[in-house]
C-alpha cells in the first residue's frame, strides 16, 4: 500500500520526506496546523522551532476560549474521579460534546461513595432558544433526569449570569425556571459540581461560571469540572505549555517561543498571505486544509490516496490504533498511555515529523 506521494505521483516515504523538507527549507514563512497525540505534538514543536515557524492546533479556534479561561481568569476545578465519587449535585452547563456523554452517564449509575448521602441530584443549565440538538445534550439530560434551568430568550451566557445574580440575591429582570429547586438542592449539597465545556459563542460565560463557583465557596464548597471540547486537542495544548511555556498559537520568530493568539492565527496568516507554505498534520482524519489563495501545502493525514492539491502527501497512522499513544483523557482528567488496538507499520506522525526535521539543512 502506498503511503507517500509528491503531487499525485507515488514515491517512497523517504523521497516524500526529502521533498517536503526542501519545500519547508525554501519557504520564508511556513506555518503548521496539527492534530496529533503527545509525542506527535512534541515533534511538531521541535520542527517549528527549527524552522522558525508558527503553529496552531487544527481546532485552534475552539481552543481559544478554553485557553483564555486559564490564561486570563483561572477558577476552581475538580477531577472526573471526584465528581463520580463525591458530587452530590451535578449541574450540566450548556452543551457538553458528545464524546463526554458516556462519562456523564457513568456517574448516574455509580454510587457517590465519598458523599454523605447516596442520592445525586442533576440540573441542566441551558440556553433557551430553538436550536438543533447537535450534541444530543437534551437526550443526555433526560437520561440523567436533570431539572432544566433556563430563562425566556436567554442565551447560555445570559443564563449563567442570571443564575449567578440570583444565587447572590441580586435583583434580576427575569428569572430562571426551577431556580427554587436548585437553591434547595444547593443548600443541601456538600459538594456540588458544575460541568462545562468551552462555549465558543460566548467566551465570557466561562469566567462568569467561575465567578459563580467562587461565590458559592465563600461559605460552602463547590467546584467545576472542565470537559474540553476536544480531549486530544487539550492534550496538545498541555504539551505545548510544558515544552515552550505557552499554549498554542505560538511562533518562533527569533528562535525563542512567542505566544500571541492573534499574530499566530494560522487561518488569518494564510488569508492575509503572511504565510507562504502550509504544513497540515492530522492523525485523526483525512480532512485537508481549505485552500487559501493558492498557498502550497503539505499534508500528513490519514489517507489512502494523495490529497488533491497537496504538494506532498504522507499517510500517517492513527494513535492508539496503529501505534501506542499518549493522549489526554477526560475519563481521568490527565494523560493516559494507550496501547495500539490494531498495531500496524503505518508511519506515525512523531517519526515522520522528526525525520522531516532531521532532513532540513541547518
Amino acid at each position, binding site marked *: 500500500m502506498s503511503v507517500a506521494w509528491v503531487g499525485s505521483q507515488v514515491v517512497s516515504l523517504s523521497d516524500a520526506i526529502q521533498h517536503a523538507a526542501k519545500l519547508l527549507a525554501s519557504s520564508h514563512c511556513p506555518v503548521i496546523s496539527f492534530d496529533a497525540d503527545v509525542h506527535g505534538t512534541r515533534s511538531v514543536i521541535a520542527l517549528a522551532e527549527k524552522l522558525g515557524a508558527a503553529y496552531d492546533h487544527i481546532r485552534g479556534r475552539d481552543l481559544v476560549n478554553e485557553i483564555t479561561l486559564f490564561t486570563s481568569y483561572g477558577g476552581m*476545578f*475538580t477531577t472526573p474521579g471526584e465528581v463520580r465519587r463525591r458530587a452530590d449535585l451535578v449541574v450540566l452547563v450548556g452543551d457538553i460534546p458528545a464524546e463526554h456523554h458516556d462519562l456523564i452517564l457513568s456517574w448516574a449509575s455509580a454510587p457517590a461513595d*465519598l458523599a454523605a448521602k447516596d442520592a445525586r441530584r442533576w440540573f441542566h443549565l441551558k440556553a433557551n432558544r430553538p436550536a438543533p440538538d447537535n450534541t444530543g445534550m437534551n437526550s443526555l439530560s433526560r437520561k440523567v433526569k436533570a431539572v432544566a434551568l433556563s430563562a425566556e430568550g436567554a442565551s447560555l451566557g445570559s443564563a449563567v449570569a442570571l443564575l449567578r445574580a440570583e444565587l447572590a440575591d441580586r435583583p434580576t429582570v427575569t428569572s430562571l425556571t426551577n431556580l427554587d429547586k436548585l437553591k434547595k438542592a444547593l443548600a443541601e449539597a*456538600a459538594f456540588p459540581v458544575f460541568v462545562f465545556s468551552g462555549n465558543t459563542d460566548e467566551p465570557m460565560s466561562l469566567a462568569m461560571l467561575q465567578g459563580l463557583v467562587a461565590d458559592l465557596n465563600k461559605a460552602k464548597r463547590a467546584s467545576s469540572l472542565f470537559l474540553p471540547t476536544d480531549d486530544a486537542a487539550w492534550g496538545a495544548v498541555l504539551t505545548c505549555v510544558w515544552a515552550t511555556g*505557552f499554549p498554542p498559537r505560538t511562533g518562533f520568530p527569533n528562535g525563542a517561543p512567542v505566544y500571541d493568539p492573534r499574530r499566530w492565527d494560522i487561518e488569518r496568516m494564510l488569508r492575509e498571505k503572511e504565510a507562504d507554505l502550509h504544513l497540515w498534520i492530522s492523525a485523526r482524519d483525512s480532512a485537508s486544509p481549505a485552500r487559501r489563495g493558492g498557498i502550497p501545502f503539505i499534508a500528513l493525514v490519514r489517507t489512502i490516496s494523495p490529497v488533491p492539491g497537496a504538494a506532498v502527501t504522507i499517510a500517517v497512522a492513527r494513535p492508539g490504533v496503529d501505534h501506542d499513544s499518549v493522549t489526554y483523557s477526560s*475519563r*481521568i482528567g490527565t494523560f493516559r498511555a494507550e496501547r495500539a488496538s490494531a498495531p500496524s507499520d503505518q508511519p506515525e506522525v*512523531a517519526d515522520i515529523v522528526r525525520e522531516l526535521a532531521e532532513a532540513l539543512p541547518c
Partner: protein
Amino acid sequence: MLIRLKGGEIIDPVNDARGGASARRDLWIENGFIIEAPEGRRADRTYDASGCIVMAGAIDIHSHIGGGNVNTARLLLPEHHSAHLPRPADTPLANAGWSTFTTGCLYAQMGFTTVVEPAMSPYSALHTHLELADIPIIDKATLTILGNDDFLLSLIRDGKSADMVDDYVAWTLAATNSLGVKVINAGAAAAFKENVRSFSFDDIVPAYGVSSRQIVKTLQSSVNRLGVPHPLHVHANNLGLAGSADTASVTIDATEGMPLHLAHLQFYGYGTEGKRKFSSEAARLAEQVNSNPDVTIDVGQVMFGQTVTISSDVTRQFLAIGNASPKKTIIIDGDGNGGGIVPYRYKENYYGSLQWAVGLELFLLINDPWRVFFTTDHPNGAPFTAYPDLFELLMSREARDRQVAELNAAALELTTLPSISREYTLEEIAIMTRAAPAKLLGLKDRGHLGPGAIADIAVYRRGRDIAAMFREAALVFKDGDLVVENGKVVNFRWGRALRLRPEPDKTMVRRMQAYHEERYGLSLDWFTFPDSALRRDEPFAEVPCNR
C-alpha cells in the same frame, strides 16, 4: 574517552578535600565515571581548571519543576515567560525555568545536575514523567504524594495492618516510578472537601475520623520499614500562618526516634509577636532542629520579586487567593491532594522582610550543614534562578547587611538576623548542596568526587563576586559529558529520572485493580504506564532500597 580536569581546587567533603592550595589536584573521568588518577596514560581531552573550584554536581531536593500543577501555573501565567525574557537580569522570574527545556538548561548552567520534583500526585505520574523526560541535561526524581487519598485514609480508619499499608505505599512508589513519599498538609485536603478550612496536627478528617498526626506517623513508619532511603518528606499543616511555628514544633517532636524531613521550614517560622502579630520564631525552631538528630529540613528561602506559588496544599492556597498578584488563581480539588496556583509578589515590606530574614536565620542558626538543605521551594519562595544570590547571602555577612539596610526595620527587629555573623564556607556549601542531598536521597553514586562516583562535576571560576561565580559555571560535566562551558550550555543530552523499584505485592495489585474498577469504573491500566510511554531510550535509573 579519558578526560583530565587539570589543577582545580577540589572541594569534596565526603573525601576530605576542603579546597585551598593543598586540595589542588587533577580529576580524571572515564566512561562517565570519576576514576583514580591513571598511571602512564594520556588524557584524550584535558580541561584547565586552574583558578577554579571543583565540586560534585549540585543536587536540589525540592523544586517544583514539572507535573500537573506546574503546567497549570504556566498556563495561568503566560506573561511571566514572555514579558521578562528580554531583560534577563532584572527580576528573578525573568530567566526562570518556565518550560521544560529552559529548566534543564538553567539548572545546568549553575552546576546543578540532579533535581527532585517533590510533589507528584499519583494519578498524574505519567504527566509528570512526560515533562521530566523533556527536561534536558540533568537527572530528575519525584516524590509521590500520599496522605489525603481515600485508600490510605480508609486503611488507617479501618485499622488495617502495617503490612497492608506498606504494600500500598510500595505499590504506589512502583506504579508512579518515584524516589520517595511526600505528605502535604496531611488530611487537610480531604477535610477541605468537607468544607474544613483550618486544620492542625491533631485535627481530624471528619469522614475518616483520622488525625493529621496519625497519617504522618503511619507514612513515616511505613517509609522507614520499606527501607525507602529518603525519610518521609513532610509539608506540615498551617503553612504561612502567623503562629505556624507551633505546628512545626509539634511536627518536629513527632519524629520519635525515626527520621523525618520537614520541607520549607521558613514558611512555618512565624510567631504572633509584634504590632502586626507576625514575628520570627526561627531561632526557637533552629534550636529544636539542632537538638533533634532525626530531623532534616529544607528552608524554602524567600527572595524578593514576582513569583507564583504552586502547591498541592489546596487548603492553604484557597486561603491565599486574596493575596494573588496578579489577580487570577486556580484551585483544584484533586483525587488526593489537588492543589492551587496563586501568583504572588514578595515585596520588601514588613511581611516580605520578615519572611526573608526567617529563612536566613534558619540557614545560619542550624549548625549542621548535613541537616539543613538549600531550597527556595521553587517557585514558591523564589525561582531557582535566585540561587546564586542566595549563596552570596549565606557566604557574606556584608551582602546581608547591604540588603538589610534596604528592608523593613520593624520586621528585622523581631529577628536575630542582624546579630548573626556566621558565613558559610565553600565546604559547607558543598555539604549542603552536594554531599548531604545525596545522603538524604540514598544516591550513593553522586554528591562526591571519589573514584566510582558518576562524573557529575561543577567547576566555578573563583572570584570576589560570589553570585556571579555560582550563576555561570566555568565547566559542568554530566555523566562525564561536558554540558556547560563558560556558563553556556554546549550539549543538550537527556538525563534520567531516578526511581525506587519495590516489587509490588500481588495481593495489593489485585486490590488496586478491584478498587479502581469499582470506584472509578476503569481498569487499573488507565492509571499506570509502561516506560515506553515516555519515548526515551533510558528514561529511568534505579536506586536501591535500604534493605
